[in-house]
Every structure is written in structure tokens, then in C-alpha cells.
């Protein structure tokens, strides 16, 4: 399992004098579930593109497992990062192109030079992993629902069997049910031992799943901490334009009104904390 380490990483896009990232130091432990938050343009996408070897750092070093790249890295070195990392872009279903679901999923593994049999097995396993029935394999991806199309796109990344999975706003545009299914799926990938890096605007998702949360602002890493510590820091939240999860907000309002309450992150925890007191009340 690869650990990810960024050491003094900076990056500037070639058409811009301004740095998109400055002096980022970060460790993402192997097998962690790391959430990446910050408003639009804060540098989240640049950061994960560097981890995936899609961009080369202007300064500093990036290590994924045994592979380290810096400003002098060649194309082949960057490609080695990608052996560990799968990247699910935003609205990935927009990149589906093949005439059948199976061919679309097979595209990545085939490009890795795998043999026919290995590719076929990988496609089957990936379809299964995203919870799509095997008989969808020969259908056109364009005839599926939005939630299904997105799962096909994720299967295409999973089929390459990455140890690190980066997902950029994977639930954007999905309805509540598809969102819930997809989040459960990602949690399963995590339990199976993969490192998850989730870019999200939904603080509920951070509260429920992440063990580490990284806050970005103006190309700088503001903090890498636990969700509990982040949500307890009102000033830090406000300064980075982050909303508190609903449960944290309600708990905060209750505390302001004099109710003594321990820290909670999710509605489930809030309900479990409150229930005994509401039942035992003398009201």
C-alpha cells in the first residue's frame, strides 16, 4: 500500500505567473479516507492532478509509494505515479464513448497492455464492484440513467485496480438515492483497503466518512486535521467559507441555548446523544 507525501510542493500553470499551489506539505497515509475541501479555485483539483502525475510540480517532491517525482521528472516517471492512482473526474459520464458498457470499462486496462483474459476478468469484477448487473455489459452506456452512467465511468477507473482512488465531486448532480448508493460504494472501496481522496463541497460527507480533512485556500494548504477538530473551529470554517454539517449546526445552536452537549458530527450521533435525555426527561 502506497503512502502519499508532498514535500514543499509548488505549481504554476504555464500560462500564468501566479502560482496555483504554494509550499504544500502533506502526508496521506496508506488506507486513509482523506477529504479535500475549499471553495472553487482553491487548488484542490491541481493538488490531486499532481498526485496522479497529470501535472509536474514546479518545485518540491511528490512521493506515491516508492515513486518520487520533482520538477526534473520525465513523462515516464509521472506515468509511474498513475500505476497506483485512479482518478474519477467530475461528471465522469461525460467521457463515456464506447458502444458498449464492457468496451468502455475495458479501455483503461487495455491501455495498460493487459492480456485479453485479464481485461475480461477486470471488467466483470469492476461491473460487480459498482453494483451494476452483468447483463448491462453489452448495452450502450448512453441508454442508462445518470446514476448508472456515472457508475460505469467509475468502473472504468476501478478496472485498472488502483490502490489510491481520487474522486472529484462524485455525487454532484445525482439524486438522493443514487448519492447514498455511491457513497456506500466508496466506503466499501475504502474498507477493502484502498486509499480514498474525496474532493467535496458536502460537509455531511466529510463528517460521515473522512478520517482526515485537508482545507485548501488560494493555493495554500490551510490545515490537515480531523473532521471533528475542523468543525469545532468556527473561525477557521468561516475564514475558508465552509458550511458546518447540519448536526454540528444544530448542536451549536443547542449549546448556545444552554444545553450541555458533547461534540457530534452526524445526525445519527446527535440522535443517539439526545435520545436518552429526551426519554428520561420529566417534561
Amino acid at each position, binding site marked *: 500500500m502506497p503512502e502519499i507525501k508532498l514535500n514543499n510542493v509548488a505549481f504554476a500553470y504555464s500560462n500564468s505567473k501566479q502560482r496555483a499551489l504554494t509550499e504544500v506539505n502533506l502526508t496521506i497515509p496508506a488506507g486513509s479516507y482523506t477529504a479535500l475541501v475549499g471553495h472553487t479555485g482553491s487548488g484542490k483539483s491541481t493538488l490531486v492532478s499532481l498526485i496522479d502525475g497529470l501535472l509536474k510540480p514546479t518545485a518540491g517532491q511528490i512521493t506515491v509509494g516508492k515513486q518520487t517525482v520533482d520538477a526534473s521528472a520525465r513523462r515516464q516517471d509521472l506515468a509511474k505515479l498513475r500505476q497506483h492512482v485512479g482518478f474519477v473526474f467530475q461528471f465522469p459520464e461525460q467521457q463515456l464513448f464506447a458502444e458498449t458498457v464492457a468496451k468502455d470499462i475495458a479501455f483503461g486496462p487495455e491501455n495498460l497492455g493487459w492480456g485479453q483474459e485479464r481485461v475480461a476478468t477486470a471488467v466483470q469484477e469492476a461491473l460487480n464492484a459498482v453494483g451494476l448487473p452483468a447483463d448491462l455489459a453489452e448495452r450502450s452506456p448512453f441508454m442508462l*440513467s445518470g446514476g448508472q452512467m456515472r457508475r460505469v465511468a467509475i468502473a472504468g477507473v476501478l478496472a485498472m485496480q488502483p490502490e489510491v482512488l481520487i474522486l472529484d465531486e462524485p455525487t454532484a*448532480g445525482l439524486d438522493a438515492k443514487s448519492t447514498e448508493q455511491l457513497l456506500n460504494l466508496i466506503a466499501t472501496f475504502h474498507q477493502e483497503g484502498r486509499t480514498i481522496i474525496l474532493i467535496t*463541497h458536502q460537509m455531511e460527507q466529510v463528517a460521515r466518512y473522512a478520517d482526515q480533512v485537508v482545507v485548501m485556500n488560494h493555493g495554500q494548504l490551510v490545515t490537515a486535521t480531523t473532521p471533528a477538530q475542523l468543525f469545532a473551529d468556527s473561525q477557521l470554517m468561516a475564514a475558508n467559507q465552509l458550511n458546518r454539517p447540519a*448536526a454540528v*449546526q444544530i448542536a451549536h445552536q443547542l449549546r448556545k441555548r*444552554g*444545553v450541555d452537549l458533547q461534540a457530534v458530527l452526524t445526525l445519527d450521533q446527535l440522535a443517539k446523544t439526545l*435520545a436518552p435525555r*429526551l426519554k428520561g426527561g420529566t*417534561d
Partner: protein
Amino acid sequence: MDGIKLENITYTYPGASQPVLKKLNLQLPRGQWTTLIGKNGSGKSTIARLIDGLLVADEGQVIVNGLTVTEDHLTTLHRQVGIVFQNPDNQFVGATVADDIAFGLENQQLPRDEMTRRIDKALARVGMSQLADTEPSLLSGGQKQRVAIAGILALEPQVIILDEATSMLDPAGRQTVLNLLAQLRQEESLTIITITHDPVEMTMADKIVVVDQQGIADEGPAGEILCQADLLHRLGVGIPVAQDLSERLAALGVAVPAGYLTTNEMVEWLCRKLS
């Protein structure tokens, strides 16, 4: 006649074996915010398109503020009804934000200075005046949807329909758009129809209509629909926060108040019980 009336509407998509809407009847009063909810494929978007005349019913009639939706009335109708769709990127034609809004107005053959006046006013309403000369592709999702709404406001419509128009926006962008709608309805007595899965958006409506394969499964004041947790789960839409908490407490054996509570009302109730 005021408001929107769908009478005995049947509609079948070309090539489909079953009608998506069958003898549907629905009334939406003028100046109200109505939200349509239902599973994918239940016909919510079809209703929106019938109101805007983008689709024509096989049977029955649609009346918008006294005007029957027919091909002859389409020009008048499109001045009265505007739709904003889900994906902001698919809706732009102009090279700048102002050009894009001008495009919609060109069909109306307005004098030049009237057009300019309407564009300026519409951009001011959505808080985008400073970005009038910006290329639409450089805007954030929330900004794009605000421009799309400005494009419709410039037509000075009486009805505005948002078909999952906030679903691709981040929470901040979504809130900006929803606040804008609430403000517009107050100031201009616009009739607003939104189609959504989002619980926050649902709580802002006056009335919620539940659409399913059989037609209108239920309709009523937002509070009445939002406290039916089973129904919301079945439809696959989001559950409002207070309702979610209330359900979890009930499952743990707490006697919770019947009916829908807003988040503030929930906090009030908890304070009373805990103090």
C-alpha cells in the same frame, strides 16, 4: 383565468408504448412557488415542457394565465414562461454574459435602448452586473445559473420554471440561486415551478406536488408533504434535516412531535424538552 391549469392531459413520447402522463389534472395558482417531486421518469419534466409549449399534449389542454397553449400562441407563451435547465454549460450561446441575454431578447424585436435597459436590469437583479462583459465559460456553476435566470428575467415572464437547475451547483451556489428566487417571487409576484430532489429547495416551496406513473400521487402545502418520511424515501428524494433527526429520534423510542418542523422549530422543541 389566473394561474396554470392542466386539464385531462395525456402525453406519449414518440416511440414509447405507454403514455408518460395519463388524464392528468393540475392547478398551480399565480404567484406561488410549487415544487414537483417524483422518481426519474415520472413525468415531472414533461409537465414543465407542456407548460412552456415545448411539447404539445395528445389530449387535454394547458392554460397559462388565461392563454391556451397552442402552436398559435407559442410566441406569446414564450414571453410569459421561462425554463432554466439542469446543466448550465449547455445553455449559453453568447460570447459575453450580456450578449447571451441579448440573444433571448432578439426574437422580440425590441428597440436597442429597451434591450439594453432590460439586460442591465436583469443582470442587476441577479447580482451579475460587474460580469456583463465576461465570457460565460469563465463563470462558476452558480454564476452561470444566475445568468440563465437573468436571461429569462429579461423577457419579463410571469412564470419561471427551474428543472433541476440547482442540482449541479455546490451548496453555496445553490443557496444563492434559491435566495434569488425567493426574493423575485416577493418583489414581482412571479409564479415559480421547481423540479428538484434537494430537501432545502423543497422546504422553500409553498406547495409540493408528487408525480408518479399514475399521475398526481399527492399534493399539498410543503409542510404536509415533507413530514411523510416514507413517501420521501420511496421517491428517492432527500429528507429535510429536522425531519431526518426527528425520524432517528423516533426510531430510538423518543416521542417526537407529529407534523413537519423546520430546523429552527426542531431546535426550539429540543430546548424546551432538555431545559
